[in-house]
């Protein structure tokens, strides 16, 4: 009984076991069928989708940044170059505590306080996931030292990349400009111009001057490389490559040696000088003093240098040649004289008797001449040579503001010259309509009087003044100043000259032109206001001095340069071209607080002419002094 029971139980147990095993087997088959269905779904149906994802995983398209074009002067001297160096870059988002990481880094390689400040500023201006340079120009030894300690610095990476350098430092800095890291505004501009693809991998862009204006030529076309990468993002091998096209080299119209002579001629003075070849409009020298070192800006300027540049009373970042707007003073007189002749308000022979002042009919106010007792009998020639104010007060009054406006506009006053770098201001050649628009006031006869001697509402930039002088030297064919002489292909070195823009012509009777030019030549001869510009020169210089008031003088008050604070002294102005009969160089000079043009600006002009026409370098430097004498 017990045994039978046990056997039955055993039999039952075995049946249950086998049934359950069978059931398990069925479930296992179902499970494997599910797996096979899953594999079929992934590997057959979805295969191309996953294939794409796998390819995207492994293939990365890396931009290959083109070499930026060089900037050369007209003789091939390098003004902006590239060189390759190591930088240590860091991606802030990958570093939990930047302060601590930099402290630790400082134990491995040099990190100066200046590096830190510069980096901090850069970090504030950039996005967190951007790779930012903390140290540039690492030595081989520093690279090696960092490489050994690399594991301690996640997020830090050594990169070899091209640097921009400006080997001449401050020289011509306002013309060359600089490049800087691409900021948000740049990104927006790049996007709006549809250039985003071409700027992949590029982290610098031209900001100012030639670097800014010719960014497109300098940058080149970005190439690309398809690289196989592993999960860590490391490149394993290149799959294909399309070469970048280097940016074009720019050959500037500037003559570096002339530029240096001109800059040095300013000595300690602030100011601007623009020297133009009147036949072509090529700018041979463009000076704005003081300048700045563009190298400071390339990888983000540190706050200390930035403050120094930005807050200096000398305003070194201000491009005075293009942006500074000054009353032209007496340098306007040759143009005013031409207007008088052309509009038949004056004949060459007509002379006034100068009592030392001018008054409008029925008004007691006296417009004073700079010479208290007057110049005696003054015709147009003499009026220019001795810079007689009384003559031009009367002439301007007779011409009337709208005629003056019309005439000066032909020479480019009151409008941008169209120079090929950004930032020029347009000056002001006032008219009745302008005053109505600007001040909602009618033009008074009194407003016209001082226009005659380049004061009042009249404003001009040194560049404009230089262009107008060049136009005059060019016998009325308008000169369009420019800085780019030629584009050079960086590979083939094939050069393409930029054609001069054919200027419109200001119709001037030859005898009128001859009279004005002769008067301007006499300005630089004994009896003229700028004897120093022409004395003893083997060539003839045509010139005109000018003074722009910084503070107004009360009626009856006399101006004494020695008694006034330096920054309240008048600005000295000077226009000139030489040789007078076949002008090769025309220029305008502004010396801030330089007194009158004859004393400070004329010697600068002379040095520049001597160097350009005679290849003569100034040997002994006479210090520029503001003279007391009232010659202008």
């Amino acid at each position, binding site marked *: 009984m017990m045994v039978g*029971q*046990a056997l039955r*139980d*055993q039999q039952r*147990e*075995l049946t*249950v*076991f*086998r049934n*359950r*095993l069978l059931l*398990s*087997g069925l479930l*296992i*088959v179902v*499970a*494997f069928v*599910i*797996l*096979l269905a*899953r*594999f*079929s779904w*992934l*590997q*057959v149906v*979805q*295969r191309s*989708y*996953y*294939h794409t*994802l*796998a*390819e995207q*995983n*492994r293939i990365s398209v890396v931009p290959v940044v083109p070499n930026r074009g060089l900037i050369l002067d007209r003789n091939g001297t390098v003004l902006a170059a590239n060189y390759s160096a190591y930088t240590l870059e860091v991606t802030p988002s990958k570093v939990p505590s930047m302060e601590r990481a930099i402290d630790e880094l400082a134990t491995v390689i040099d990190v100066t306080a200046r590096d830190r400040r510069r980096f901090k500023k850069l970090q504030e201006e950039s996005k967190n996931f951007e790779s930012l340079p903390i140290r540039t120009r690492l030595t081989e030894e520093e690279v090696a030292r960092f490489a050994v300690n690399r594991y301690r610095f996640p997020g830090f990476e050594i990169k070899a990349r091209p640097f921009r350098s400006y080997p001449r430092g401050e020289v011509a800095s306002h013309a060359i400009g600089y490049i800087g890291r691409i900021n948000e505004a740049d990104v927006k501009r790049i996007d709006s111009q549809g250039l985003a693809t071409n700027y992949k991998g590029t982290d610098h862009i031209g900001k100012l001057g030639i670097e800014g204006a010719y960014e497109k030529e300098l940058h080149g076309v970005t190439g690309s490389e398809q690289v*196989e*990468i*592993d*999960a*860590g993002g490391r490149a*394993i091998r290149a799959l294909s490559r399309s070469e970048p096209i280097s940016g074009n080299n720019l050959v500037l119209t500037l003559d570096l040696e002339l530029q240096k002579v001109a800059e040095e001629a300013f000595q300690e003075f602030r100011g601007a000088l623009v020297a133009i070849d009147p036949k072509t409009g090529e700018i041979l020298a463009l000076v704005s003093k003081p300048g700045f070192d563009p190298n400071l800006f390339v990888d983000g300027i540190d706050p200390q240098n930035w403050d120094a540049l930005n807050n200096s009373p000398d305003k070194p970042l201000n491009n005075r040649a293009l942006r500074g707007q000054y009353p032209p003073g007496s340098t306007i007189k040759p143009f005013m004289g031409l207007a008088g002749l052309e509009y038949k308000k004056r004949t060459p022979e007509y002379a006034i008797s100068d009592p030392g002042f001018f008054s409008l009919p029925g008004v007691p106010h006296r417009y004073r001449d700079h010479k208290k007792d007057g110049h005696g009998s003054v015709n147009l020639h003499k009026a220019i040579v001795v810079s007689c104010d009384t003559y031009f007060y009367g002439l301007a009054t007779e011409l009337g503001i709208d005629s003056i406006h019309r005439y000066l506009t032909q020479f480019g006053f009151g409008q941008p010259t169209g120079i090929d770098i950004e930032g020029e201001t347009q000056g002001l050649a006032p008219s009745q309509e302008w005053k109505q628009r600007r001040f909602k006031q009618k033009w008074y006869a009194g407003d016209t009087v001082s226009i005659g001697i380049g004061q009042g509402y009249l404003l001009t930039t040194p560049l404009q003044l230089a262009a107008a002088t060049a136009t005059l030297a060019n016998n009325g064919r308008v000169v369009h100043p420019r800085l780019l002489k030629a584009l050079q292909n960086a590979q083939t070195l094939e050069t393409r000259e930029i054609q001069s823009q054919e200027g419109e012509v200001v119709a001037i009777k030859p005898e009128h032109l001859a009279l004005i030019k002769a008067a301007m030549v006499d300005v630089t001869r004994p009896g003229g206001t700028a004897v120093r510009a022409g004395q003893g020169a083997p060539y003839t210089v045509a010139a005109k001095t000018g003074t722009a008031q910084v503070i107004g003088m009360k009626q009856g008050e006399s101006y004494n340069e020695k008694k006034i604070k330096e920054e309240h002294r008048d600005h000295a102005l000077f226009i000139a071209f030489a040789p007078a009969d076949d002008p090769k160089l025309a220029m305008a000079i502004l010396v801030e607080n330089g007194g009158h043009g004859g004393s400070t600006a004329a010697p600068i002009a002379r040095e520049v002419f001597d160097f350009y026409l005679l290849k003569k370098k100034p040997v002994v430097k006479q210090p520029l002094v503001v003279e007391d004498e009232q010659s202008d």
Partner: protein
Amino acid sequence: MISRVFEILSRRIDGPLMAALALTIALGLTVVYSASGGSSVDRAVGQARNLGVALIALWIFAHIHPQLLMRLALPVYVAGLGLLIGVALFGDVRNGARRWLNLGFTAIQPSEIMKIGVPLVLAWYFHRREEGLRLRDFVIAAVILVIPVGLIARQPDLGTALLIFASGFFVIFLAGLSWKVIGSLAAAGAVSLPFLWSAMHDYQRKRILTLIDPMEDPLGAGYHIIQSTIAIGSGGILGKGWLNGTQAQLDFVPERATDFILAVFGEEFGLVGNVVLIVLYMLIIARGMMIAANASTVFARLTAGAITLTFFTYAFVNMGMVSGILPVVGVPLPMISYGGTALLSILVGFGILMSISTHKQLVSS
């Protein structure tokens, strides 16, 4: 002479099972080589050494008579339990979990012992209670099972705990646990799911959420599963070829030599390779079931059945996890993944199966 040696070596070896195992193992070695970057043989050699040890263990266990094994079941279980308690009290913490016990000369994971110990002791228990199993017996079996599982789950090592629970459950299920109880347990399990959820560790919850939507955290928790499905899917029908899987060779597949080796295999050998692997697994399982069905004692039957079903569970859980239909738990792909311990415990299991297969005549006579 040679045939004599062969006969001695193969006396306790089940031919069909050994053949299927050998094919699978050979496949595994080629994939391990590929998953180690294909440039160094170090790993493949290391795995071959592991394999040598595991094969010797298989051979030894194939010679241990099931009767002896049954007598060893309880001591092994008790020792394992003692070591688990030791781990809970004195264990080393590695990677945030207390799983290792330092014995002075070597460190061991006692949970590995329980992978064999739990099914053996349960089979032994049911064998002893052969005459008329009552509900009480199943309750006791459940207690025997739950104590080590609970200890392992607390380490925490949820994956191993679940697998050991499964192996024990298979014994209880095959022993004839009534469907009513199974049904009510399942219902109770469903009801307690929310409690289970709240008792889980954050990383465990994340794994389950990741399964539902891996793109939620593509670089974090979802990264493994996204990259492994990309690898498998991009392999297509024929695969990219041995050593040519881009996902695998360029390191996009994490844990590519161990838990995620199926992604390497699926990428390089495609759907065809996966079918071959599944067929091999099914042959092994089918042979294991035949051995279980023909075993002569309750202990042998239950042990063989549980070992076979547990083997299936390993294979299915790993394949399901790598192909993205099951949550990520740390289960290697049996006989393919790199690693000595897992290979050892699996081949020990098959050694026991072979012992059962070749000793049955002696028992019945």
